């Protein structure tokens, strides 16, 4: 009853579902300036350390018969390498380290964000937008450098009837420029949505009658979130590969 009353006071929920996304200084209080170490910074650093631990410390023995850590690292390497090679072809392999960087950062941020009390850097549009726009500008510049003006043939669907081509070109151009927006919002939205929904269910746990249901719902959502964390990292990476392929081979 007390909790409920308090909850009502606080605007309906004991836990505000969006509070978990607040970026605040990790040490002490104060304003967040560009160099402040925030909770976001700390979890990014943990993600970097985790990548280092898996890919460098895990493979330090260079064993022919791999240990468990090493086989996970090799699995990640083979997974992304094969993806890049399958989608972009042999020329795309040159850009494999960049794509691997994105994938490792996203997948570790997503998974580490699922720990209780953790912060998910990838749930912030600022973070995902930087990555998506980096991919967008990188791919666009690469396309013009590699193909020159013929990169614009990407928008000119030569297999369509001539009368339709201008309309299709318009649609293609719009969809091309929407790419970074959807690319970034998809990742941030998915991460934010899952965490917010878990928090909403956690808020219901304050009411004793539906608390067991809430626990079951949180467990189920958590399982889904584990899946989503990986799939969104995979999707971000595979879309990066697709965009890269468009830059390398713009002709339909």
């Amino acid at each position, binding site marked *: 009853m007390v909790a409920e009353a308090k909850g009502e006071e606080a605007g309906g929920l004991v836990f505000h579902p*969006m509070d978990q996304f607040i970026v605040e200084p990790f040490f002490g209080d104060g304003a967040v300036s560009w160099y402040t170490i925030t909770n976001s910074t700390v979890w990014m650093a943990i993600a970097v350390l985790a990548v280092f631990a898996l890919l460098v410390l895990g493979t330090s023995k260079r064993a022919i018969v791999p240990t468990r850590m090493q086989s996970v690292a090799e699995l990640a390497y083979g997974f992304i390498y094969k993806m890049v090679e399958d989608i972009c072809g042999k020329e795309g392999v040159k850009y494999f380290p960049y794509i691997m960087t994105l994938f490792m950062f996203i997948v570790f941020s997503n998974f580490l964000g699922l720990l209780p009390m953790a912060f998910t850097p990838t749930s912030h549009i600022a973070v995902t937008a930087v990555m998506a726009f980096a991919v967008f500008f990188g791919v666009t510049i690469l396309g013009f450098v590699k193909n020159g003006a013929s990169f614009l043939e990407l928008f000119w669907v030569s297999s369509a009837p001539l009368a339709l081509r201008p309309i299709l070109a318009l649609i293609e151009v719009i969809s091309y420029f929407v790419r970074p927006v959807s690319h970034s919002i*998809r990742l941030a939205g998915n991460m934010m949505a899952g965490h917010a929904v878990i928090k909403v269910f956690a808020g219901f746990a304050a009411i004793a009658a539906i608390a067991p249901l809430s626990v079951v719902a949180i467990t189920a959502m958590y399982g889904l979130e584990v899946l989503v964390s990986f799939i969104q990292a995979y999707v971000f990476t595979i879309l990066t590969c697709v965009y890269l392929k468009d830059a390398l081979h713009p002709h339909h």
Partner: protein
Amino acid sequence: MEGDIVQMGAYIGAGLACMGMGGAAVGVGNVAGNFLAGALRNPSAAAGQTATLFIGIAFAEALGIFSFLVALLLMFAV
């Protein structure tokens, strides 16, 4: 009083925006179901198309996420 009406409208709008997520659910189910139907007809070709499946699911799901985002914006940012 005026703020209350604005807030009411925002909350109603948020609820309406959540209907978009149902559309995304239908879309994702459609993609996955059609993939499964095709995969059962020709299982040997299914393995090569899982990437396409995930891309399709991601595109369909992104629209649901957009509507969810609109709902959140209406709830918390407007």
